[in-house]
């Protein structure tokens, strides 16, 4: 089970999009997993042949637990599948942990406690609990000899209220943001950028192409952010285990608010290398899928910086909270016509407020200021961002 976000502990398996014996390429979608942020298509991160599918629909699987076996290189997938099917294969380790609750948790309604202090669970019930992701310590026994029976497990599973997706997402955001404000010493920089050149250039470009190929200002902003990050790589990456790790590319997390409430910030990959037209197409696709809950695992897991634009709502300035383990967040407000002094004259111009929230453990205001300067410079030369 891949980690589809820093705070993810487990995911509920939905379905396979691949079969045993199927050849898969790196990046291919092989299954769908339900997370607190919605259903996510999981892409496999290594090429090979799928030998055995282990995860079953409805199972709640901790991050890091095996979901499938993959034959790579010259390995024979059938041999791997056969070896996995033999009884010698060890049980998955997380299950054992679940089977060893404190002795005090044992309540067999009057029955003598088992000699070993181990929960009395029928073998079939144990297997069923594993399938349903049920913690046996919380199941009330009523079976023969005061043991937990299969029926007890199924009753316990039915009693678990389906988790409210909205509430779960709220919890996830709360956890991530609390962690951010608890751990990350934020600093904030803001800069007013004259967007007249960019917008005028875009309007001219858009007038000459069909509606479907028009590019929104937000796409240009994203491209400018990605290119500006080349100057200040310490804003792009992760802070983990007390150390900064630079991002492998300019993977911009685009904050998307969802209709039912809550938000996600899936990644657009290598934005600095995309043409403006390609970037726009990807952005549209990403927004559509984010709102219909069809995001891919890589999009969820690896944004290296987040960009949030609240301009549509009339907000002038955004002071964002960094999404850990990222180390910076770029906020962009609305473009509003304001008085602007240029060459000694006051002229009306469309102005946007760009802000940077930075992690002071990793970067300093001095260096980060260069990012906003570079962002401004790039937006004055929109033709350089094509």
């Amino acid at each position, binding site marked *: 089970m891949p980690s589809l976000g820093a705070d993810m502990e487990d995911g509920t398996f939905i379905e396979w999009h691949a079969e045993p014996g199927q050849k898969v390429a790196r990046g291919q979608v092989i299954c769908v997993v339900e997370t607190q942020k919605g259903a996510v298509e999981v892409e496999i991160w290594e090429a090979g042949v799928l030998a055995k599918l282990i995860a079953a629909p409805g199972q709640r699987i901790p991050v890091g637990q095996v979901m499938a076996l993959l034959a790579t290189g010259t390995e024979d997938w059938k041999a791997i599948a056969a070896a996995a099917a033999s009884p010698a294969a060890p049980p998955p380790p997380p299950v054992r942990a679940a089977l060893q609750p404190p002795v005090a948790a044992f309540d067999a309604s009057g029955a003598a406690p088992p000699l070993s202090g181990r929960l009395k669970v*029928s*073998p*079939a*019930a*144990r*297997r069923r609990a594993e399938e349903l992701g049920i913690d046996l310590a919380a199941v009330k026994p*009523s*079976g*023969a*000899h005061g*043991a937990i*029976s*299969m*029926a007890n497990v199924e009753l316990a599973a039915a009693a678990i209220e389906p988790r409210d997706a909205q509430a779960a997402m709220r919890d996830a955001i709360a956890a991530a943001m609390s962690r951010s404000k608890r751990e990350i010493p934020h600093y904030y920089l803001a800069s007013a950028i004259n967007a007249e050149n960019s917008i005028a250039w875009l309007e001219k470009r858009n007038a000459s192409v069909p509606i479907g190929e028009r590019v929104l200002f937000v796409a240009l902003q994203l491209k400018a952010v990605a290119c500006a990050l080349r100057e200040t790589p310490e804003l792009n990456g992760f802070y983990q285990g007390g150390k900064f790790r630079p991002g492998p590319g300019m993977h911009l997390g685009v904050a998307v608010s969802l209709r039912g409430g809550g938000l996600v910030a899936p990644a657009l990959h290598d934005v600095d290398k995309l043409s403006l037209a390609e970037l726009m197409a990807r952005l549209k696709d990403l927004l559509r899928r984010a709102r219909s809950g069809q995001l891919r695992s890589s999009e969820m897991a690896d944004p290296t910086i987040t960009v949030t634009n609240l301009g549509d709502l009339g907000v002038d300035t955004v002071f964002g909270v960094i999404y850990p383990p990222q180390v910076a967040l770029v906020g962009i407000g609305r473009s509003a016509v304001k008085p602007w002094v240029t060459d000694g004259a006051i002229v009306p111009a469309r102005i946007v407020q760009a802000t940077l929230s930075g992690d002071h453990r990793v970067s300093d205001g001095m260096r980060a200021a260069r990012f906003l300067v570079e962002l401004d410079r790039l937006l004055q030369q929109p033709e350089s961002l094509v």
Partner: protein
Amino acid sequence: MSGTVHINYREALRQGLREALLRDERVFLMGEDVGRYGGSYAVSKGLLEEFGEERIRDTPLSESTFVGAGIGAALNGMRPIVEVMTVNFSLLALDQIMNNAATLRHMSGGQLNVPVVIRMTTGAGRQLAAQHSHSLEGWYAHIPGLRIVAPATLEDARGMLYTALQDPDPVLIFEHASLLNLEGEIAADPQSVDIDYAAVRRQGTDLSLITYGGSLMKSLQAAATLAEGGVSAEVIDLRSLRPLDDSTIIASIAKTHRALIVDEGWKSGGLSAEITARIMEQAFYELDAPVSRICGAEVPVPYAKHLEDAAIPQVDGIAAAARDLVK
């Protein structure tokens, strides 16, 4: 021929004997009182008159001698059916059965085989006391080289004998004495029956009653009682006690996840213990409750009616154990 015929277990056994005698001239029956007296349980009544003294042979009261003679005849190409009055008396012939019948194929490197069929009565329920009432088929099922079968239905009572005679090696048939008056309708036209597989006599989903012989009908009655209480019991008739048909047992447990073994024999070192062990070996992870057993009490079978009843599995006890298992 078609249609059904009303018949009892005793008559079904007799039909099986007649059919074997008619179909194969190498077949003959011998044992104590099988001829002039018509068999101690009247199974062979009338056969002496029909087939004559050559083929229906009364023997002296010496189990070792006439079982040994049967083995000798089988070695020389005949297809003898040896009747031993009860399993308790068969112990006098145990040396012949175990040391000769069961071993000769192996000791001769395959040169000699012993196609003898030995029929005997087993079980309690008729107040015949400890020397006539035990269920020792589990002992015989311990011995490699023997095939052990237990007809518990009218069809099997009629059909198992001929199939057993086709086996090139010794087959022991255990007929439970309490079944002799069991009546019912069966096909008038004898069908051949196998002696290899267990049979699911009643389908169910909540637990598997695994039984054979004299306990089958009791288990079926218990299953009917259980059904009234909403418990769906599957009933497996083992039919063959050696070899055991593991696959039918395991398939049933994979469905019901609970097993109750009903065996009139004793628990200790018995057939029920062997079946339990096989379930543990092959279906442990299917079990939702410990394997349970209703068996004969570990005493010599008593003479007094109430004590005898208490010493062997009964319908109420089977049903109660089943309810405990599924609660």
